[in-house]
């Protein structure tokens, strides 16, 4: 290799390493696309994946609920705030069921047995699916629990609660989706 080529190769290698690092950091950035869209009054399409039901009775997708309002709630049995909002979500389920809607739970990094025990303990009657690889949570930008997304009858996200859901939030969201 000629002497003049050595600095060039060193610079290219250094730039490549820095670019790789930047790529890594950018990829890890929180996904707030949905939040931005909802905050600007838009209704982005709700990300969807086919996931196994917690009770083992097959798989479900959000698309299979099309035509119904859905409260998508990410939770886990180890999540302490999830216990706080569980009774509220069950009451929401009763209200939604009367309007042909549903709460759909999504367990996150949890075992089947622990999640089922949680549902029994709090008397939750709505269905839950298992997001085993966390891809659905990732597509919603979920990194902490609990998080709740209200989806209208056309499968669009209308309201987002990153944290424990409140009755006030649910009332406002239900008004938007006609419940």
């Amino acid at each position, binding site marked *: *290799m000629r002497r003049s080529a*050595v600095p060039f190769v060193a610079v290219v*290698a250094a730039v*490549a*390493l820095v670019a*790789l*690092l930047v*790529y*890594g*950091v*950018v*990829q*890890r950035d929180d996904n707030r696309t949905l939040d931005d869209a909802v905050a600007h009054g838009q209704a982005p399409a709700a990300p969807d994946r086919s996931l196994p039901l917690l009770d083992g009775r097959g798989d479900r997708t959000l698309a299979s609920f099309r035509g119904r309002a859905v409260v998508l709630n990410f939770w*886990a049995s*180890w999540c302490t705030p999830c216990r706080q909002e569980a009774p509220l979500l069950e009451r929401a389920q009763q209200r939604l069921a009367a309007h042909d809607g549903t709460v759909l739970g999504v367990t996150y*990094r*949890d*075992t*089947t047995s*622990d999640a089922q025990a949680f549902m029994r303990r709090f008397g939750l009657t709505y269905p839950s699916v298992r*997001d*085993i*690889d*966390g891809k659905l949570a990732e597509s919603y930008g979920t990194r902490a629990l609990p998080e709740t997304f209200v989806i209208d009858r056309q499968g669009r996200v209308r309201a987002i609660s990153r944290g424990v859901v409140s009755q006030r939030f649910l009332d406002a969201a239900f008004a938007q989706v006609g419940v």
Partner: protein
Amino acid sequence: MRRLLTAALAAAAVLAAAVPAHAAAPRTSLTDIEDEVMCVVCNVPLNVAESPQADRERVLIRHLIAQGKTKQQVKAALVAQYGDAVLATPHGGGIDWASWAIPAAAVALVLAALALFVPRWRRTRPPAAVTGAGPSLDAADARRLDEDLARYDP
């Protein structure tokens, strides 16, 4: 013949006793697995995690070990419950991938630099003076040296 038959029966008895003992022995241990899996809530390796969820994972691992599962089977069962996030290895894109790629690229770069520059450095280094004669003296210095030495001769 009878002696041979006795020996064969004794060997069979020893083997029969050894096989259940082997089957009952744990194939892996909690400590062997703990450093290769994560506490999925705390995002730290399980062997340093202290949380209720970490304890739950340990209970699950002990339960699987008690069932006679191998290390790989235990890890596969954990992945089936918690996803790839439970493995203490990079599994996603972004920084996880970069955390492997950057050190590897850096090591490759250093090795390439060594391979390139060490031979060149060895070629260009001046050879050490290895003659035993020492530096040569001109005539005047040689004469003065002889005179000095003569003065010290007994």
